[in-house]
């Protein structure tokens, strides 16, 4: 169970700009990794490497011992801050799409009994995320929070091994966020997911994660800010029990991050 995902010496640079630098780590199956760090430090880039939309400049990523697929695939689900759902489909169709892709290779569209089947599955997932009563609504008729619920249902219908969340609640209200936290934790536990979630909110990171990563540059050359990249500077195992420990960590990282982000 321990080496579900392995990163070996991963680096990523765009041209001259080094974004990520020599990251080596392992992630166990079922972990909930939260990623925090200053803006532009490479959190989304890291998710893109896991997702397969970007290739690492050097190093290797393996999942269950196999090199990662170089393209997004249905074993890795994703929810972005925005644009994660399709505006031209209603909630039910949004969720059913993943099933239709799988069961109708030619048209990506099911009819008759097969369609009925897909709708049933979709409705079950809408239920799971609390959107049963909004199945016929289009995304523009849903609030921001409901859209993100929908995006989660849509991703989970494919039963991904890994779920990647890039600031999924960044655009939501604090009040609504709390509900979403509960939902994500519930889904994580029920579906035995391995989750990577980027957040700007340290407290959120501590609250949700089973493990928290802080991304930062270990070295900094003030005359050539692009020369060095970020890596995981803190890797903190978390659990709901030792809340005090967590609180101390929170304060420590807060002051640390403050320094980082203003230099």
């Amino acid at each position, binding site marked *: 169970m321990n080496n579900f995902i392995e990163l070996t010496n991963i680096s990523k640079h765009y041209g001259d700009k080094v974004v990520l630098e020599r990251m080596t780590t392992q992630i166990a199956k079922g972990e909930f990794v939260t990623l925090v760090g200053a803006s532009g430090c490479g959190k989304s880039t890291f998710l893109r490497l896991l997702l397969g939309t970007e290739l690492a400049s050097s190093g290797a990523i393996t999942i269950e011992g196999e090199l990662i697929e170089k393209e997004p695939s249905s074993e890795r689900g994703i929810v972005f801050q925005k644009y994660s759902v399709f505006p031209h489909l209603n909630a039910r169709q949004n969720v059913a799409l993943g099933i239709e*892709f799988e069961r109708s290779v030619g048209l*990506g569209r099911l009819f008759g009994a097969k369609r009925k089947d897909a709708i049933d599955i979709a409705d079950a997932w809408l239920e799971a995320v609390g959107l049963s009563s909004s199945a016929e609504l289009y995304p523009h008729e849903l609030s921001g929070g409901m859209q993100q619920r929908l995006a989660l249902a849509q*991703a989970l219908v494919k039963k991904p091994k890994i779920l990647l969340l890039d600031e999924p609640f960044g655009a939501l209200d604090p009040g609504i966020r709390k509900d979403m936290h509960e939902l994500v934790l519930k889904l994580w536990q029920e579906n035995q997911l391995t989750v990577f979630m980027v957040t700007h909110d340290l407290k959120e990171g501590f609250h949700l994660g089973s493990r928290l990563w802080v991304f930062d540059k270990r070295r900094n050359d003030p005359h050539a800010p692009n020369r060095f990249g970020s890596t995981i500077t803190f890797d903190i195992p978390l659990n709901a029990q030792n809340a005090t420990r967590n609180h101390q960590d929170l304060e420590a990282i807060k002051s640390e991050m403050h320094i980082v982000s203003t230099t």
Partner: protein
Amino acid sequence: MQRLINRSPSRPLRIALSIIPFVLILLTYQISSGMRKAENEQDKLLPSFTEIASAIDRMALEPSKRSGEYLFWRDTQSSLSRLVKGVSIAAFIGLIVGLAAGAIPLIAAPLKPLITAVSLIPPLAILPVLFIVFGLGELSKIMLIVLGVSPFIVRDILQRTQELPREQLVKAQTLGGNSWQIILRVILPQILPRLIDAVRLSLGTAWLFLIAAEAIASTDGLGYRIFLVRRYMSMDIILPYVAWITLLAFATDWLLLQLSRFIYPWYHSEK
């Protein structure tokens, strides 16, 4: 006293204000026409409103002596049918090519410079070449419209396709879609309302090319009639025809917008 940039006219004032320029134009016309008529009773350049009315009556409400047809309606029908065919073909080409190039980088590479070049060629200047390819019948008129507007539509659709949020395509891939499925179920349905937008934007050009095409070789159509009666300067026919074309252009644009609002409500509330 509010700043000028903050002051909006009330609804009745706005309506009144928007009518004024049209009234002014009609008045100016009537005065100019009257002045010319005072000099030469038979002046044809600026016919009086009565003359225009009688011309409309003759063209639209009485059957032609020669063919027994109501010329005005026949012209309208021919022109509209050409316009619809031409624009539909152009929209179809625009959709297919624009979508393919927008979605598949390997297709965009060879096509983009070609489309740019083609869109810059003035079609009216190479008419003879078009004739040998498409002949001189209905097809050539429709094709002139197609050539006139499809480069624009292709470019527009290509750009709109590339503007779709990257996130959506990634998401669709994580849902297990292959390229074809993604194009069919994610890109195409979102591009259709944008195609209507592109068509609406290109209607003006389409009319221009339609009129030009009908001036080249034709036996009916609004553009044909305008160019034919130009031979004896029947402005009493030309002016209502031009007004009619303007109205038709406005109506088609409006209808397309309503259609789009009706079929794609999600698109219009998105913005």
